[in-house]
């Protein structure tokens, strides 16, 4: 009976002894990539409210229970919505958020390229003009600079 008691005590103590010692830095590492569900746009690791301190404590408890970072983030998203993470977890929202700026950038680039194309076309139609040249003209920056440098004060 005594042996059984010792085994039970051992089984209770050992996991406690070997339980992960979660540091505040490890908690912050996860909290840094999450946002306070109450305050607008404040990272969870930096938010000073009591609610955020509780949520950081919750993260610590989940880490101690062996939850991974992704599981913790998913749990918070389930409870508070996609606003608690820096990029949405929902695939449709994630795609919308991340792809759109590149599409917009592409449109901006297209506008720039179209400007070049328009310019190029206009230059080509002016065949009577001399061919494009790299010779400095009156507007040439280099020639103005050289004039400035050597042309007297």
């Amino acid at each position: 009976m005594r042996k059984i008691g010792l085994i039970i005590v051992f089984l209770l103590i050992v996991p406690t002894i070997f339980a992960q010692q979660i540091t505040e830095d490890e908690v912050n590492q996860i909290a840094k990539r999450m946002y306070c569900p109450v305050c607008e746009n404040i990272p969870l690791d930096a938010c000073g409210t009591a609610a955020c301190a509780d949520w950081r404590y919750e993260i610590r408890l989940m880490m101690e229970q062996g939850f991974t970072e992704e599981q913790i983030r998913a749990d918070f998203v389930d409870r508070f919505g996609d606003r608690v993470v820096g990029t949405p977890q929902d695939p449709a929202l994630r795609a919308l958020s991340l792809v759109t700026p590149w599409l917009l950038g592409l449109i901006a680039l297209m506008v720039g390229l179209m400007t070049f194309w328009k310019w190029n076309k206009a230059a080509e139609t002016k065949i009577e003009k001399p061919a494009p040249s790299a010779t400095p003209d009156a507007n040439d920056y280099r020639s103005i600079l050289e004039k400035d440098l050597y042309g007297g004060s």
Partner: protein
Amino acid sequence: MLAEIGLVSLAFTLLAALYSVGACVYGQHKRLPHLILSGRNAALMTFVSLFISTGALEVALLTEQYQISYVWSVSNPSMQMFYRVTALWGSQAGSLLFWAFLMSGFSAAAIWLNWNTNRRLMPYAIAYMMAVLAFFVALSLFIENPFTRYWITPTGDVVDTILIPAGASMPRADLLASSARGLNPLLRHFGMAIHPPLLYLGFVGFVIPFAFAMSALASGDLSSNWIKATRRWTLTSWLFLSLGLLLGGRWAYDVLGWGGYWGWDPVENAAFLPWLTGTALLHSVMIQEKRGMLKLWNMFLIIGTFSAVIFGTFATRSGLVESVHSFARSGIGIPMFLFWSGMTLVSVWLILWRNRRGELRDDNEFVNLLSRESLFVLNNVVFMALFLAIFWGSFGAPIISELFMDTEITLGLEYFNRVTTPLFVVMYILMGIAPLAAWGATSLKRLGKAILIPFALTMVSLVGIAMAGMNSIGALFGYGVVMLAGYVALYEIYRAIAARSRRGENPLAATFALLQRSPRRYGGYLIHLGVTVIGIGVIGSTLYQQETQRTLSVGESLTIDNYELRYDRFDGQQVSRDGRIMDIANVTILRDGREITQLRPRRDFFPGGQDGMNSMTIAGSHSTLENDFYVLLVGWEPVNQNTVTFKVYINPLINLVWWGGIILILGTVITSLPANVMPERVRKQMVVLAGANA
């Protein structure tokens, strides 16, 4: 009495501004110079009347007239005089009035300075400026009136109204004073006290070039006159906006307690957006000035900048940033949205109308793809892409997801770092190459020759950095790109000074002469140099930031890198002169075992502060050019303060962000000076003095 004075002069301002719009438009349409002159005088009068109105509110704040509800909500008897002054823009009603006051000041100055030189543009320019002013004054008068007062009605209710309710009496002055709320603690910081006026100056300043551009469209004077008339206004606005952004960053670093200066918060981004379009405009107008090209694009850019200013003001003041649904609840949300969309639509319509008539056609034609104008177009593409990406992350995606998918989302650091970093890299590359390219056409050979020495200097620097222990390819690439832009600017300045020195001038006199002769070019190089220094600071403080958080007992230490922090003592419940209660931890900082300084990170509490706004985390920091050792007091054991939690950051090169900002500001000031600004006599004296000092 002060409330009545303020209110009457505010109402007069609205009437004067509306009269000015009508007189200038009708006078121009019917060719009635006396009516235009009258409209101009009315516009100038708005400055006088708003000065009186704003002055009345300021005097009310200084003399503690707590019966005025605005004064009661942003001040209290324990506040220092300085913060009483800055409380003028401490809340919505006051800041709208202040915005209008600055706008009227800028308008009056623009009218005064341009009346004789740009007579054709002035009537419509005045009309546009006054239309914007009238809108903000109307907001101030009808929705966010800073002159409402508290009254006790016969039924015992306390109400704040503009007019005195029948049979109402004044509340007791001592009761009002004892319950006054005081300024939001987060605003009780020097940086935050002057950050809003600087941003407002930047914002309202961009209204001037916008009004002149719209006037050019309305009057048909589509030459570069509007650009010449407003170049300095654009630069001045850009200068104030840059200063405002820098001070906002510094305030965040000092007061918000998260170890950084830029969090991609929608409010910050709302101020950054017009800065981006304004920067694109400053480059793009050069093409119109030099080559008569991009007339249409410049019109769109100035509208975009103005639109971003109004949208930023709308987004941050209407509640849109918090939630799409809260903006309608804010009194100014819907009027601002209508004004913003109305002005934008009218402006775009004007552009399209003129463009359809062929009046915005370029004067010159493109010569070569490899030219400065091409690189400037690419630069504009990058700035617009940054604008769109930041707008999307701050407003677009959150609004669309909430409106159409019923989900609130936050796009944070992950999004912004991923999307903006490549664009900033391209921006720095262009910043390095574009100044070396010629207008019209250049050749690869010439460009290669010009960039050779800056490129070699960059490579040497990178080898040095790598030998110092930095081995991240990404960081080295980032530093390389940023430093190339800086070396190009430095080398160009050096070449010019060296050439003049060879003619016998000493370097100081040569520098002075160059800045005198061509302030735009060399001021521009200084701005590029400032942006380079900021870039080096941003890379260092972002990629190499170290942080740790530990709970310590008295006498215990934590170690981070080669630093050690020792917790010495806790001074709890210290009361300062302005009534704040401070909890202060005393710590000693050692580096390589040697004591370097003692710091006192603290938490300030403001009794009676507004909910959620009554505490402030003030970091203790030891600053050197190499890094900041930055300590935050995160928490402590409430009973005996024996154990305290600290969060410690090492922010490498962070001070370069502020130093770069100073260089940028200096460069902008030089750029906006006219060539040969000083009289000949003074210039000669300066040159002689420089010679004597050599």
